[in-house]
């Protein structure tokens, strides 16, 4: 007699080696993340080869640790969920191959998961999803507005046309000679400064939910450059505050417009940039006047890459009957709309 669904999730798309076990789609039985940020700091960014090597070293240890934390054995697990993309190919492959080996050795079904679907489903570990919903996904590689009319169905209604929001943070941090990862540094600095430097907001065409952060990045570089040529210097905290104000205003306004146009019940925030304090405050402020719509912002530990979110999304996909064969491959540029369950 089997009464609960236990999914083991594996995530290795970038610089975190993570394994988690989720019970019945929503309860966290184990959540282990081995971060590599320290190893990549001195290179000013994630170095793919180093990331892959770390994943190889960590993956079996992390799987063992997750099983121990949950006090479970592989025999009790119902299926293995794994990130198939998007991400760094060499990093993804470690997780995919570990998942395939586990599935083969223990004769368990294999469930492929889209990384962004995972970020969205991190919210289901906080509260039950209410459809239709809108997810604002903001991370180092993604800036997207995703509309979901039901479980496992993803429609991208807006995306970045150039740089992702997190990427703009990292590049601006690089211009200000701040260490990697740049986002938290800019966020902290922004809290100390004032948005006194005029920077552009890219609204794009009327009715578009797309984003563009490349012009903003160039404007920041121009501001620094022009000040240097005049022999002046700009207070970095004011520049950070001005940059952050521009990013947040565009993210929040576009989300508000999409929420109104699509008449959603719930707004989910997902991805690493959701850890940004300024963004959290602005979203809470914007949607507090709208009590009919629930705003969900996951805790920091579920915003950054983790495997609990992969197991959570994997649980839904498992129940929808999504399976992969042992020929599952890593797809670095996987499109979320092609992943619809």
């Amino acid at each position, binding site marked *: 007699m089997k009464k609960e669904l236990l999914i083991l999730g594996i995530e290795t798309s970038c610089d975190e080696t993570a394994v988690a076990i989720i019970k019945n789609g929503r309860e966290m039985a184990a959540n282990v993340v081995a971060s590599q940020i320290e190893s990549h700091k001195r290179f000013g960014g994630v170095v793919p080869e180093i990331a892959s090597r770390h994943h190889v070293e960590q993956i079996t240890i992390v799987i063992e640790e997750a099983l121990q934390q949950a006090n479970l054995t592989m025999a009790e697990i119902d299926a293995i969920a794994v990130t198939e993309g998007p991400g760094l190919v060499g990093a993804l492959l470690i997780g995919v191959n570990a998942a395939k080996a586990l599935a083969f050795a223990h004769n368990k079904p294999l469930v492929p998961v889209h990384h962004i679907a995972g970020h969205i489903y991190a919210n289901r570990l906080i509260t039950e999803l209410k459809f239709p919903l809108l997810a604002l996904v903001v991370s180092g590689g993604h800036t997207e507005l995703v509309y979901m009319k039901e479980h496992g169905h993803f429609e991208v209604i807006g995306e970045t046309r*150039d740089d992702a929001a997190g990427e703009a943070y990292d590049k601006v941090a690089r211009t200000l000679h701040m260490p990697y990862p740049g986002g938290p540094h800019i966020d902290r600095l922004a809290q100390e400064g004032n948005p006194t430097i005029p920077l552009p907001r890219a609204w794009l065409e009327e009715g578009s939910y797309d984003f563009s952060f490349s012009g903003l990045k160039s404007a920041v*570089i121009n501001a620094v450059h022009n000040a240097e040529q005049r022999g002046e210097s700009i207070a970095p905290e004011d520049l950070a505050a001005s940059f952050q104000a521009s990013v947040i205003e565009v993210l929040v306004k576009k989300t508000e417009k999409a929420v109104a146009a699509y008449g959603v019940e719930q707004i989910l925030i997902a991805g690493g940039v959701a850890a940004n304090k300024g963004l959290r405050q602005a979203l809470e402020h914007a949607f507090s006047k709208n009590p009919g719509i629930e705003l969900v912002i996951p805790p920091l530990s579920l915003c950054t890459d983790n495997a609990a979110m992969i197991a959570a999304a994997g649980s839904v996909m498992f129940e929808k009957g999504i399976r992969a064969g042992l020929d599952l491959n890593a797809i670095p540029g996987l499109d979320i709309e092609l992943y619809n369950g």
Partner: protein
Amino acid sequence: MNQFERISTNSEETGQFAAGLAELLHPGDIIALEGDLGAGKTTFTKGLAKGLEIKKNVNSPTFTIIKEYKGRLPLYHMDVYRVADSYEDLGFDEYFNGDGVTVVEWAHLIDEQLPEERLTIFLYRLEEDRRKMVFVPTGNRYEELCKEIFK
């Protein structure tokens, strides 16, 4: 070494020039793009993609390192900034010898892995929107290509 120069007054002009170049490209052509942050590498590649009749939006490949697009010819868009001098086999050769056009941003960082014959384009920010584009061809194919572009 031959080199060719062109000043562009704004990003539209940079894009149009890149689109014009795209019309002359063949399968297997390799373009190395060099320039600081904000110099216009992605803008240039967007123009090139347009000239290759690629309909999908071309955005920054910084995160995934390689992005592929379908057009008149396939476009392989790479940002190797994070690859630096690592020797990971990302399957670059398959792209370089493939049926498409490869654009490599920050190409000098993987100099040893790049084919010797290629077109290197340096983008320099002059002020605000003005950019200088310097084309340096290596090998016959790319010398002819440059003569064709700048005739």
